[in-house]
């Protein structure tokens, strides 16, 4: 065995906003050996190739551009004293808190007192969405499109269809326009959530209740076949299609380490202290709940610093925490485990998703027949966008009790 073996205090996997936030806060709060491994050649995560504003602010176009945000968060982690190593991929586990990594310098085996998984999320590609048809050139996800346009300056095409109505679809449209591509339409199989006029973005119509039934053309895309809600079918001529949203956490490393997943989010199950079921293994960011804003991912990273320090000091790890589950139309909730230590999730609220639009949802939380919370939200909730549940009731939940169920009353 020719692996260089080492020990660190905290090993962070992934230098996106979440991992960098965790590393900065941990190092700043006095943890000595904090090491971040990032498989890409530069740190920063997804924002590296998001050339629009909107990072580090809650306003749609406030804050800085993605690359600038990536630079700042990288610099902050380094300044705090964390070790950042790029071009190093964590490939698997050799023990409960021992990870194997590959880089140009060779193979390593790093044992940590605490591990932070912050591996992010990806958009489901066309194949994972089981969209039939030919396999032509001109098929993208937003992630690939942004890198093609902003990093590699590649030729994209002339006319594009965007699939998906999540906010990332707007970023895709902006990227396409920056590359000189006309956006023919955005399509989603979900119903309209807004008055039609608001659904337009720079003139490209949003076709709701519209399902992509096939891709046509070979070797290049010539059109996207769709079926409308009323059963009509048509083909939208285009040479480019971008599949946006429909996120899936990059949970492979977690699963290879037998870190149990939450069935709703498909990310590691975790409590408000960002502890997974695996002792010493924490997680943060989009790995836990697919895509939130970068600021949310970074805040989660920072928030786990205190519980990590507690764990480093005591070695304690809770057992048998009651799970949180949601009932349809809710799709998932994060965090999704209760905890015994009175920790509250970031911003003192849970993040949820709904599968269909809700005008003023009445959220009800129950455990073992007991109602812990009931309140009507003032804001409408939409699919693909965060819906928040205040965490005030969390202290009343029994971590050793039955499953906590969240429903729309």
């Amino acid at each position: 065995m020719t692996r260089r073996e080492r020990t660190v205090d905290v090993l962070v996997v992934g230098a996106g906003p979440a991992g960098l936030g965790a590393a900065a806060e941990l190092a700043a709060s006095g943890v000595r050996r904090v090491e971040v491994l990032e498989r890409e050649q530069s740190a920063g995560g997804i924002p590296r190739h998001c050339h629009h504003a909107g990072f580090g602010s809650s306003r749609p176009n406030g804050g800085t551009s993605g690359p600038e945000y990536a630079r700042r968060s990288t610099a902050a982690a380094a300044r705090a004293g964390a070790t950042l190593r790029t071009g190093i991929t964590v490939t698997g586990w050799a023990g409960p808190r021992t990870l194997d990594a590959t880089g140009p310098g060779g193979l390593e085996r790093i044992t940590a007192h605490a591990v932070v998984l912050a591996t992010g999320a990806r958009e489901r590609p066309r194949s994972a969405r089981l969209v039939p048809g030919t396999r032509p050139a001109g098929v993208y996800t937003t992630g690939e499109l942004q890198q093609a346009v902003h990093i590699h300056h590649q030729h994209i095409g002339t006319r594009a269809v965007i699939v998906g109505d999540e906010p990332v679809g707007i970023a895709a449209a902006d990227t396409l326009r920056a590359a000189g591509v006309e956006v023919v339409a955005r399509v989603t199989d979900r119903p309209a959530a807004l008055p039609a006029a608001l659904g337009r973005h720079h003139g490209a119509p949003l076709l709701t209740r519209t399902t992509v039934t096939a891709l046509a053309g070979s070797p290049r895309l010539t059109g996207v076949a769709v079926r409308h809600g009323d059963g009509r079918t048509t083909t939208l001529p285009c040479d480019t299609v971008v599949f946006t949203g429909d996120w899936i956490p990059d949970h492979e490393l977690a699963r290879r380490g037998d870190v149990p997943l939450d069935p709703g989010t498909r990310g590691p199950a975790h409590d408000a202290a960002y502890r997974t079921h695996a002792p010493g293994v924490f997680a943060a960011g989009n790995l836990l709940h697919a895509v939130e804003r970068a600021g949310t991912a970074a805040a989660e990273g920072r928030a786990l610093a205190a519980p990590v320090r507690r764990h480093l000091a005591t070695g304690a790890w809770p057992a048998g925490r009651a799970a949180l589950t949601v009932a349809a139309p809710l799709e998932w909730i994060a965090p999704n485990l209760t905890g015994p230590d009175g920790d509250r999730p970031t911003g003192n609220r849970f993040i949820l998703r709904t599968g269909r639009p809700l005008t003023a949802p009445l959220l009800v939380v129950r455990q073992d027949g007991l109602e812990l919370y009931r309140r009507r939200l003032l804001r409408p909730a939409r699919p693909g966008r965060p819906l928040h549940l205040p965490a005030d009731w969390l202290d009343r939940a029994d971590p050793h009790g039955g499953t906590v169920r969240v429903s729309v009353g």
Partner: protein
Amino acid sequence: MTHTVTAAGDPLPALPGGAPYDVTVIGAGVVGTAIARELARYPLRTALVEASDDIGNGTSKANTAILHTGFDAVPGTLEARLVREGQRRLSAYAADTGIPVERVGALLVAWDAEQLAALPALLAKAEANGYRAARLLDADEVAEREPHLGPGALGGLEVPDESVICPWTTPLAFATQAVRAGVHLHLDCPVRDIEPGSTVHTLTTGRGPLRTRFLINAAGLYADEIDRRFGHDVFTVTPRRGQLIVFDKLARDLVRHILLPVPTSAGKGVLVAPTVFGNVLLGPTAEELDDKTATESTQEGIALLREKGRRILPRLLDEEVTAVYAGLRAATGQEDYRIQEYPGRRYIAVGGIRSTGLTASMAIADHVTGLLARTGLDPGTPAELEPLTMPGLGEAAERPYLNAELIARDPAYGTLVCHCERVTAGEIRDALAATLPPRSVAGLARRTRAGNGRCQGFHCGAGLRALIEGNGP
């Protein structure tokens, strides 16, 4: 030896003294490349002409990738013999050259009384085909061998020598060895017409005329059309489409064997099989079509596969799908290959290589070379080919990213470019500098796996395209 590989824009080379090729093979699928490799052993001027921009770019790139034992072939057919022989030859060749193969074994699972009743006859058929290692299993043995199988399996037949193989490395190895031994490979070179001659045939190709003394038609789905140029009307290829779903690597632990359906009156059914890349395949469908380009997947096909897959391995359906693809079998309405030599015309048709051509490729090549002598060619004395080592793409082998010595010698093998498939910068560089470099992102994927993973390019797609485009002419 200089290598001759030409593509769009290049002129076809003139041979010394304006001589024609001795032998030309039409079609660089797994069959045509295997034939070219076999011919490369002889002192012949051989050309391999291919319509597409890469070798192995037709049916040969889109199959189920099983190295069959031939246990269930129709006894006594040419196909039965060539599959049996091809399996032996290709297994040995794969071991020599590093083509990934995993001997996972197959299990035919009976889900109802009719299927259960069919198993003893299948066992007898295997024995009639000279395969003696198959064995009947009861329900408990099946459950023990495949713990994640859906409920209701009544019994099974175990065929321990069925293996999975890399469908892309195989024709690439054949073509590489052929080109290195002097075979001329002409890509982007569709044969549009043939003027059969008394000593020399003239082919009209998309890149000009090509003259050859002997001709071998290995054009796969189009073998019937080439055959008609000789005035024959012997067979018609009717494509039989097979759609397949590839599941992510996290599904690999759900299955240990190739899970074959038991063929009954109700049809052939679909299989679940591991791949040498560590994925799981579900498929194929069997749809009779008349369009030789209809390699698209359909809603109905995907739905059917999912329904069958849920029965076989319920948990498979919870895993992420990496890819969906379809291939076209060259069916001809006859349960056998259509290999026919025409001595007077110095021509051999290699048609109807339907659903076993990957396995049988090397035996087909040997058989066809034998027939060539019967059509009047004295091929001369065969020589040994230079040994070849192919990149180890298989999940079971030690991949470069796990090879400390290799990385110490060359750090490029420690830099991952495609994260899902764990392909390194060193492997991509090697592929781009190989005897037959890729000319598209898809060609790079077939040589290295790069871009073939669960993210389908979300992370590395743009970067890979930059590498290919940077490599262009």
